[in-house]
């Protein structure tokens, strides 16, 4: 029973929303905050993110409207000195077992791919984009990490946590600090 939950308690007050949508809004904000933390503690290969001020590209696969909501604010942000560029992809276009070339190029240029509500088969397409991916692959789907994603969010009744797939991360070209990995739940 974490003390901060109950003892120091100024908390749990605040916004006036008191509906399921308020809860959902809070969860999404927490996930974005997680994503910012993951980016802060990730190192990309120099060939992919050459300079301290190189633009960091986040591709968000989402057709819920959430990505549009945060696009404005994220695009104004800098993380570790990197300006942020957000690409929104409504859904993956797959024909004959291949992701459309234009989408594929966008995804390969990305440093972070955040797939909200992914399908299992789509994860395989994403992990198959490169033998050694140069992007951080995040997702919301239950068992996202178990199915090959690198970090998958998990929601319980009261907390938002995350699973990490150490094998998938080790097979990539990116380096994520163990500060991140040790605080998540490892899946095998």
């Amino acid at each position: 029973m974490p003390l901060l939950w109950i003892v120091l308690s100024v908390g749990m007050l605040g916004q006036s929303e008191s509906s399921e949508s308020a809860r959902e809004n809070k969860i999404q904000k927490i996930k974005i905050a997680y994503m910012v933390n993951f980016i802060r503690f990730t190192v990309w290969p120099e060939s992919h993110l050459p300079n301290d001020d190189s633009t960091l590209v986040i591709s968000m696969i989402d057709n819920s409207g959430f990505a549009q909501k945060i696009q404005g604010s994220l695009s104004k942000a800098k993380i570790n000195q990197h300006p942020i560029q957000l690409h929104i992809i409504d859904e993956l276009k797959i024909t004959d077992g291949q992701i459309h070339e234009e989408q594929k190029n966008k995804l390969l240029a990305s440093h972070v791919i955040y797939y909200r509500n992914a399908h299992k088969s789509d994860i395989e397409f994403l992990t198959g984009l490169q033998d050694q991916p140069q992007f951080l692959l995040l997702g919301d789907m239950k068992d996202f990490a178990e199915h090959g994603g690198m970090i998958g969010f998990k929601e319980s009744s009261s907390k938002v946590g995350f699973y990490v797939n150490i094998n998938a991360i080790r097979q990539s070209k990116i380096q994520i600090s163990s500060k991140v990995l040790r605080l998540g739940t490892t899946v095998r």
Partner: protein
Amino acid sequence: MSLKSFHRGYITTSLLVIPLITLVFATALQAQTDDLLEENSFLNMSIAELSDMDVSAVTGATETWFRSPAAVYVITQDDIQRTGHQNIADLLRMVPGVNVAQVSANSWSVGTRGIQGQFTDSMLMLVDGRSVYDPLQYVIRWDTQDMIMDDIQNIEVIRGPGTTLWGSNAVNGVVSLTTKTAEQTQGWLFNSVFGTQLEPIVSLRYGDKINDNTHFRVWSKYANRNSLVHEDGSDAPDDWDMFRAGFRLDVDAPNQLNWSIQGSFFHTDRLGGDSLLPDPTTSFATNYAITDGRISNGYIQATLSQQSNEENKWTIMTSYERSNRSTHDGFESLRDMFEIDYRHRHTINQDMLLIWGGSWRYTSDHTEASSAVAFIPQDKTTNLVTGFLQGSWQFMDDKLALVLGTKLEHNDYTGFEYHPSARLSFTPDINNTFWSSISRAVRTPGRVNSSSQITPFYADTGLLAGGPPSGFIIPIQIGSNGQELSSETLFAYELGYRTHLGNDWTIDWTGYLNRYNNLITTSDTNFGQLTNDLEGEVYGSELSVTWIPSPTLRLEAGYGFSRSFMHGNGESSYENSFPVNQFHLRSYLDIGQDLELNAAMYYVDEVEIQDAESYLRLDLGLTWHVNANLNLSLWGQNLLDNQHSEFFDNDRSMEVSQIPSSVFLRVNMTF
């Protein structure tokens, strides 16, 4: 004006003036609020804070470390892995203002806020909400606080009073350890640590799921720890081992109902130590004895919680513990403890929250006296009944928060006690928090102060009278001798400030003034008589600075300053019982994907009355992540000197145990 008067006046004035200054300063800072960060107040939180965020409380983001109106420090699993400590007491070395002094290989004294005795008696410790404070001896026994280190989720340490919610004895601080859920510990874990002081520690754990909502783990750990050394390099007689095993079952039932059952058993009959036992045949003589202590302990705990609707969340926890302990001097105790604790959080409206609850603790003990220690009566049953109410209000668009609360309790030693506190925080933007608090806290005398009789030696009545020996020898005893003792009381005043400077720096400062009354001590005029005739002031400051210059490097420094001034009987045993200055610096460096280089340096001032010289300690560790399932760590600890002492209990031992430099290798496998 005396120095003491000056200090008191200076501190009191500061406590009045600083909040005004900070309020003005904070108001000016409001203009600097970043639009983006204002939109998402979670963005400045660490991963550990986000993991702790309760999303079932749909009303905001303020239950965080950064906004909390108390001196809180959180030790994460990453800190545990990167500091190399292999016991829970040593982990607390990284908390600014907390002094950890190792007394022997199996005994630690942990203190904060300027007061420290041989044991940890003014701090409370909770493990998953269950108190592990020993109700017989009124201390935290650090030798029994152990588990698989990988299974710790985090350790939250509150410096300062926590009695409003947790009751008597959380006078100077609370240590709350939270273990991982069963879902977080799935699969096999094998962990082995072996080295010059650890020979070895072996842990094995298996976790699995029964269905998607039901997870469990079973585990065991054997730790064989080497002795410390005497000044001449010879082994101290304090080597020890301990075997423990446990389980945990977690169920996420429908309707947001969660329940959990966990239990553990541990045993040792090799708790090495020495003692000076009184010789009943010779005046003022003691006999030196080396003996092994013995402990058998088991507990079971069940926790049920539910977010019944948007406004209400409740938790009920119940536990039973049986402990059998035989100390080095031959004193034996058998203790049973049953506890039930209920807590309820009720959101009144968007600006007001109530937390209330109650508990009942039943303790029964049986003791067997040794030649040095006796409890009178030999058997005792006690009940502790408590209730608390705390309200939180927020003003100025959540920027200003007020927390008022009190705990009421009834114990069998001093009757009714109350523990009120008032806390105020001001968060003009997500980069700055100012806070202050006033608390009244109480430490009750308890079984050890009211019932124990310690016999340091026997004496001839003739010699005692200043004449020739009479041949009639009586025990000289320390105890309350039937005199009722009052509770020790504390009025604590705290101020704090936290700030994020850019994305890379976090600074956390706390200042405090503690005024103690009725401290229990031995009388200067009536030898051996425990009295409440000591009072005093302690003031100090704690500072933590974190710098994360790159994704692969994190640096953290901590500083603690403390001065104490005592007046009355036995002041020498309290005053200067704590280091005036403490400092530490830690560095976590990732080298590529597979290597970590971690370092920690600790400086602690001398503490004369404990024969502890100042020391500088350096720990260095290299970790190699061989693959996703295997990592190896090589650690060197206390690398700057061959050995040093941190605490000498000269009432019980002939020679001080010193902590030697050491190396160990850690193998961690998951599959």
